[in-house]
C-alpha cells in the first residue's frame, strides 16, 4: 500500500519511523523542538530531540561524539551551505575516525540538509554542493529526487553505519508523490531508471531529474526515445547501470545544477569516457550550471541554470539531429 505525501513530509515520515523502531536515533538542530507541542518532541521527548544554538561545528561534532558513544544522530542542518561553516567536522572528522582507529569505531550520523534553492535566494543559499562530498572516502551521499526515494533513502541513511550527507532539493520540497506505507528502504548505490529509452541516456540528480524527464517527453514527440537515470546516491555511485544504458543507447547527456568542475556530471563523464568509450557513438555532452554566483534577479538566475530546453538541445547535439529543429 502507498499514500501520497509531499517530498519533505516523506523525509520526516522516515525519521519518525526510524525513531520509533530504534531508540538510539536522535534528531536535533537549530530552531526545532522549541515547544513541547512539536510532534517529534511530543513523540520522543527532549532527550532525543533537541534544539541547538547556531553552532554548526558543535552540532556536527556533537553528532560524531554521540555516534562514537553508540547513538545514531540525525542533524537537521536546513541548508547545505551551513555545513560549510563546519567543513572540518564534515570532511575531516566524521569520515576519518573509522579508518584512523583501524576499524574500532563507526560514525553512524546523518547530516540532513536542503540544497539548490534557486528561487530568488541569490548567492549564498542556492549552491549545489553534492559533488564536494562525493569524493571523500568514508562519506556516503544521498540525493533523492522523488518523495518515495526521499523516504527510503533517509531510512537507509539512518541505518547505515557510516556518516551520510543527505541532500534534499529545496525546489522539490512540496512535490507530491506516492510513498510506500510503513517500513521502506531504498538501497544505496542502486540507480533508478526513471524512463526507458533506446536512443540516448540522460543522467540527472535531484531537481535535474525532472529537467531530464521533461526533455525526454518533448523528445518523444520528435521520435527520440531517451532513457533517464537517477543515481539516487552519488557515493556510492552506480556506474554499472549508467554504463549498461550507454552500451544500449550509444549516447550520453549529463545534467547537473552544479557548476561544471564541481559537478557530479563531470565525475560520471570521466568514468564513462574511461570505461564506456567503446559504447559511445558521439562525444558526451554536459548541461551544467554556468560559472557564476547564483544571481538574485529571476531571468539571470534562470539563465545560469539547466532547463528542459537546454537538455533537449544537448540531446539533439549528441544525436546530430540539431539541424532538424534549428
Amino acid at each position, binding site marked *: 500500500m502507498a499514500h501520497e505525501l509531499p517530498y519533505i513530509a516523506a523525509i520526516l515520515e522516515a525519521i519518525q519511523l526510524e525513531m520509533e523502531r530504534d531508540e538510539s536515533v*536522535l534528531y536535533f538542530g537549530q530552531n526545532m523542538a522549541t515547544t513541547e507541542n512539536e510532534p517529534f518532541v511530543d513523540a520522543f521527548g527532549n*532527550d*532525543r530531540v*533537541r534544539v*541547538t*544554538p547556531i*553552532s554548526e*561545528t*558543535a552540532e*556536527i*561534532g*556533537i*553528532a*560524531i*561524539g*554521540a*555516534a*562514537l*558513544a*553508540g*547513538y545514531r*544522530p540525525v542533524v537537521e542542518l536546513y541548508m547545505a551551505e551551513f555545513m560549510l561553516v563546519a567543513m*572540518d*567536522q564534515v570532511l*575531516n*572528522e566524521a569520515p576519518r*575516525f*573509522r*579508518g*584512523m*582507529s*583501524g*576499524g*574500532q*569505531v*563507526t560514525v*553512524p550520523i546523518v547530516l540532513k540538509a536542503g540544497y539548490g534553492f534557486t528561487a530568488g535566494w541569490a548567492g549564498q543559499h542556492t549552491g549545489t554542493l553534492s559533488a564536494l562530498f562525493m569524493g571523500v*572516502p*568514508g562519506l*556516503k551521499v544521498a540525493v533523492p529526487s522523488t518523495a518515495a526515494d526521499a523516504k527510503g533513502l533517509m531510512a537507509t541513511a539512518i541505518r*547505515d*553505519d*557510516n556518516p551520510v550527507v543527505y541532500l534534499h532539493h529545496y525546489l522539490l520540497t512540496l512535490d507530491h508523490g506516492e510513498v510506500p506505507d510503513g517500513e521502506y528502504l531504498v538501497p544505496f548505490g542502486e540507480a533508478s531508471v526513471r524512463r526507458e529509452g533506446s536512443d540516448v541516456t540522460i543522467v540527472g540528480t535531484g531537481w535535474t531529474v525532472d529537467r531530464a524527464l521533461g526533455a525526454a517527453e518533448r523528445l518523444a514527440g520528435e521520435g527520440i526515445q531517451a532513457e533517464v537515470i537517477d543515481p539516487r546516491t552519488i557515493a556510492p555511485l552506480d556506474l554499472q547501470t549508467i554504463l549498461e544504458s550507454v552500451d544500449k543507447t550509444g549516447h550520453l547527456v549529463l545534467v547537473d545544477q552544479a557548476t561544471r568542475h564541481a559537478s557530479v556530471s563531470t565525475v560520471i563523464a570521466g568514468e564513462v569516457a574511461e570505461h564506456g568509450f567503446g559504447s559511445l557513438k558521439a562525444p558526451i555532452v554536459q548541461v551544467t550550471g554556468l560559472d557564476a554566483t547564483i544571481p538574485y534577479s529571476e531571468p539571470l538566475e534562470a539563465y545560469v541554470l539547466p532547463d528542459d530546453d537546454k537538455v533537449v538541445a544537448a540531446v539533439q547535439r549528441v544525436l546530430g539531429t540539431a539541424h532538424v529543429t534549428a
Partner: protein
Amino acid sequence: MSAPQGVEKLEREHLVWIYRQMSRIREFEERVKRTFEEHPGVIRGHTHLADGAEASIVGSIANLGPDDWFFTTYRCHGYPIARGTDPKVMMAEIYGRKDGLCKGLGGSMHLTDVSNGFLGTSGIVGAGIPHATGAAWAAQIRGKGQVVLCFFGDGASKQGAFFESLNIASLWKLPIVFVMENNGYNVHTRTEQEDANRAAGEDLSVKAKAFSMPGVTIDGRDPLEVYETVRTAVVRARAGEGPTLVESQMYRLSAHGNIIAPPGVPLHFPEHEAIEKFGAPEEYEAAKQGDPVPAFRGRLVADGVLTGEEAAAIAEEVREELQAAVDFGLQSPFPEVETALEYTYA
C-alpha cells in the same frame, strides 16, 4: 597498587599507582624520542610528546571509573598508558606496524582504544571538543552516571569549536570536564601572544565565565592538586550539575613536535622553543627544575610513602617494560597493504 577511580581519600597504593603511571608515560616518551636517533625512519610524520604533562594526565585519568570515556588531542600518548592500554601495541602503532593499537592506520596522532573508553583523537586543534561533548550527551541520555574527560590545549581555546561546545555543555548540563592543558605555548607561539585573557594578565579559566560554568586554574605539575580538582568536577558532572573548565598549568619539556621535513631528511626533536626560538634558555632550565616526575618521586620518598629503593625498583621495572614495547614494535611486521582500504566504510 590500583587506579584510584575517583576515591575521596588517596591511599598509599593509589599514590604509588600515580607515580608509576607518571614514570611509565615519561619513559614511553623518552623511548619515542630515542627511536628517532636509534632507529631512523621508523617513526614517520609528526609526533608530539607529553613530557611535563604527566602529573596532569594521571591526576585526571585517575578519576575515571570503568564505564567513563575520554577524548584527547594529537599529543595523546600519555592518557591511554594511564588508562591501561598496553604500551607494546601503542609503540607498534607509532611505528606503523600490524600489531599497532589501530593496526598501523592512525599513528602517533590518532591513538584510539575503545576497550578502555578512549573513543578518539582528532589531530585538528579544538576539533575533538565537540566530540567529547557529544559523548557526554550520550552519557546523559543513557543515564548511568558516566562522565567524559575532554583534554585539549590552551591553543584550542581560541577555536570556535571550544566556544560552541562549552556553551552547549553548560546549557544542557552535560556530564563532562574540560581539562585545558596550558603548557605556555601554542605550537611555537607564547600564550600571551595569542590569548586576550593571558595578555591582560588573567588566567585562561576566566573563559568559563562566558558559559556560566565553574572555571579553575591549578598547578598541573602537582598530580594531587589535579586529582582533587578533577575529582570535584567529576562529582559535580555525575550529579547532573554540569561541566567545569579546569586550566591545568604546566610546561611542555620537549619541543612542540619533531621537525617537519620532507622524506629523506632524518627526523629529530629540536630544542624547546624557549631555547630555539625565543632565546630564553633560563626559562627552560627553570621549568626543568619543576619537572613533575622527579618532584613527585621526591615528595613520596620524603613523606615515607616510598623508600629510595622502592622508587628505584619502579624505575627499573618501567625501563624493562618500555624496552619490551620498543622491541615488540620493531619486530612487528608491516600491515598487509589491503588493510589501507579495509576500514574506509563500515
